[in-house]
């Protein structure tokens, strides 16, 4: 179980302090897919970096399976928005997926199996020896997802992973993520600014306020587990949920203007 | 504060090594004696004349090298044919050490300013030229095609597409050239005897005045630090509009 309790993050530079996150508390159960959505600039990425252990919180704590997260914990994988920058351009697709496994000291035959399974699962057979930059943007993001999947994480963090790919690819990748989630039973925390995406993907949606961030609203997505682009999005319930999230975000924007604390 | 700690450490080391007898203080005097020698030098007019001579040679040489380098770079870079045909010659001429040109310099200019300038210009020119060529090669083909589609003239393409792209590279080239020009100015003065800090170093050396020599060496180092700081500042000011000051450092 992933627990975030009283999380606070203040950025300090020489001249001023900026409170990015004021107070965030929520939990994600094992095997759950939770989407975090909020207005732009609301500190979603800061939250994710704190959860991933890439950033130390100013206050509060993040716990994974009861242990406080102080650095990147084992068993957690991250997929970043900037696919072009998160893949090692000097390594082939195969080596990009393989490298984290090698660091985990997974035995060689097991590694080979994991890499090829993961690449097959995201539909990237036959590109193993290519370099990432030879692939399209959507395919590059698939490599990043394959890398995360092959890592066999218990928790998968995704930071606006589809914000920079085209609409059709995006739809495909959304279905891919849901399919993988259902198959692997992994816990997923999915950060996005796209309301439709959040509702379509998640079991639960957390709506964040504008910065300094708190949890504005939390709602259960009571749509059937089998979802598809055509019917789910046309569903009346989907539309209702979507409207509710939209309202909350608008409220969040109005309620709390940006405040910078001068020191 | 931290920035000064490195220099302070160096100073301490330079004081301690000879004091502890790890090196003979006749041949590497402790820092305090070098500083005293520096203070004595700084009170003489000849010292400031020498600094002035060196900086004059540096500045004039740099201006000439940059003008020639930018002109040649844009010309060669903008005309692909020229580029392929000159590549081998540039690679041949570039590594010829400027110190090898000393006899030629003396032949043409004696031990005057001209000799120093020849070596400074030769060394600094390549730094600028190579950077400008890199810069010109970096022009975005899309921007180039956009300019063509709007029927920009050749001059307008150079002015509005090629030049802005190359500018950060040009600045990197200038910064590299500024550092190299100082090294060469002092070297030329040292080896040829043209007036300037280098020739004063040579006189101190042949007179066996080691502390004075070291003090003058320190002055060249400080000049280098100052020039580099100035160049970086200018670059930051003038290129603040550019999202990333790209390119290469050091030389």
């Amino acid at each position, binding site marked *: 179980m992933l627990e975030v309790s009283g999380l606070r993050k203040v950025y300090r530079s020489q001249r001023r302090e900026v409170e990015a996150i004021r107070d965030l508390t929520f939990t994600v159960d094992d095997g759950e897919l939770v989407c975090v959505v909020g207005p732009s600039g609301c500190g979603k990425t800061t939250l994710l970096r704190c959860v991933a252990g890439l950033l130390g919180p100013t206050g509060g704590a993040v716990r994974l399976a009861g242990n406080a997260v102080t650095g990147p914990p084992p068993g957690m994988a991250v997929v970043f928005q900037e696919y072009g920058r998160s893949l090692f351009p000097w390594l082939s697709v195969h080596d990009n997926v393989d490298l984290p496994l090698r660091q985990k000291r997974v035995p060689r035959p097991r590694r080979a199996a994991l890499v090829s399974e993961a690449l097959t699962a995201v539909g990237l057979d036959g590109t193993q020896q290519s370099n990432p930059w030879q692939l399209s943007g959507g395919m590059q993001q698939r490599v990043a997802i394959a890398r995360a999947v092959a890592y066999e994480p218990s928790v998968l963090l995704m930071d606006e992973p589809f914000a920079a790919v085209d609409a059709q690819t995006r739809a495909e990748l959304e279905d891919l993520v849901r399919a993988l989630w259902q198959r692997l039973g992994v816990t997923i925390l999915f950060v996005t600014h796209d309301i439709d995406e959040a509702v379509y993907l998640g079991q639960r949606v957390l709506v964040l306020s504008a910065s300094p961030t708190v949890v504005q609203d939390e709602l259960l997505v009571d749509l059937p587990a089998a979802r598809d682009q055509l019917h789910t999005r046309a569903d009346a319930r989907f539309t209702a949920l979507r409207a509710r999230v939209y309202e909350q975000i608008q409220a969040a924007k109005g309620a709390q203007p940006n405040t910078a604390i001068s020191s | 504060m931290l920035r000064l700690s490195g220099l302070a450490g160096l100073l301490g080391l330079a004081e301690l090594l000879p004091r502890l007898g790890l090196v003979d203080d006749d041949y590497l005097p402790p820092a305090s004696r070098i500083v005293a020698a520096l203070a004595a030098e700084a009170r003489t007019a000849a010292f400031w004349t020498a600094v002035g001579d060196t900086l004059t040679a540096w500045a004039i040489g740099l201006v000439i090298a940059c003008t020639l380098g930018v002109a040649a770079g844009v010309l060669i870079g903008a005309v692909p044919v020229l580029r392929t045909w000159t590549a081998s010659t540039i690679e041949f001429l570039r590594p010829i050490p400027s110190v090898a040109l000393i006899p030629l310099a003396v032949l043409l200019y004696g031990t005057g300013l001209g000799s120093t300038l020849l070596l400074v210009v030769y060394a600094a020119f390549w730094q600028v030229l190579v950077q400008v060529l890199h810069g010109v090669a970096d022009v975005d083909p899309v921007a180039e095609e956009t300019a063509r589609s709007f029927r920009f003239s050749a001059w307008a393409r150079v002015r509005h597409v090629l030049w802005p792209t190359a500018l950060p590279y040009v600045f990197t080239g200038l910064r590299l050239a500024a550092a190299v020009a100082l090294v060469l100015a002092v070297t030329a003065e040292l080896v040829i005897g043209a007036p300037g800090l280098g020739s004063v170093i040579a006189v101190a050396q042949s*007179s066996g005045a080691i502390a004075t020599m070291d003090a003058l060496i320190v002055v060249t180092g400080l000049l280098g630090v100052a020039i580099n700081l100035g160049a970086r500042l200018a670059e930051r000011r003038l290129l603040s509009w550019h999202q990333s000051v790209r390119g290469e450092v050091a030389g």
Partner: protein
Amino acid sequence: MRRMLTALVVLVLAGAAAGCSSSAGPDSSGGVDRVKVGVIPIVDVAPIYLGQQRGFFGSRKIELSMESGQGGAVIVPGVVSGQFQFGFSNLTSLLIAQTKNVPVKAVAAGVASTGQAGKDFGGVAVRGDSPIKDAAGLAGQKIAVNTLKNIGDTTVRESVRKAGGDPATISFVEIPFANMPAAVQNGQVDAAWVVEPSLSQITAAGGRVVAWNYVDAAPELTVAAYFTSTKLAADNPGLVKRFTEAITESLTYAGAHPDEVRAALATYTKIDPKLRETLTLPEWPAQINRASVQALADLGARDGIFGTASPDLTKILP
């Protein structure tokens, strides 16, 4: 486009050539010749600075300016190309130049050995605790000289030869005079042929002189001379004559007034004041000692520094 570039290159070269020709030849204005002399800023050239102060040149309508070059490699081309009207060089270099047909000619004596072992301005020095006791002991050792295949190694070999050692066993290494005290002290070389003021620095640190190579090479050895280009000698014999007279007077004056010489050192060197008072001054005779130059030529020929040629003294000496 390329033609333009070629034109540019030609233009630059032409500009350079113009700059060269404009400064060639002495400027004469109002009957006063402006003369540049290429000198190495060492003790040896003190008389020309002194002569300038005393007005020996001015009275002969010569306005003198000294251009300090670091060694013959700079001064000879400067004189040949007309950048300098006169230059200062050791005689072995001038002899080498003559065998290579460099168009130069000596016009006056420069500096000479004192001719007295124990009281010369140059010698071969070792560290105080060195096992080397005399010139014969230098055989088989590593000796520093300021320039290879020049006056230093040929005369040091002669010292060893005369003392009964085998000069072929010496290995010479090139180090600037200024670095020799450190090199001797640190044991990087077994001995160093060194001149003032570095010689005094070595002896002050406890070093000993084991051979006086100038003294051994020839009696009253003329070490260096002032020279000009054959072109100037042919085109302006009057100027050369006046310069020779002035420098000769300076040399004689310097020989007679060592205190003024020591004072003059302060004007163009940075030698420590204490050292300036005690270092051994060379001789400044008015005439080049032809016999000693012949001896240098013979030594050089013996060591093979002239290649297959042999120097012709009548062409190089006045």
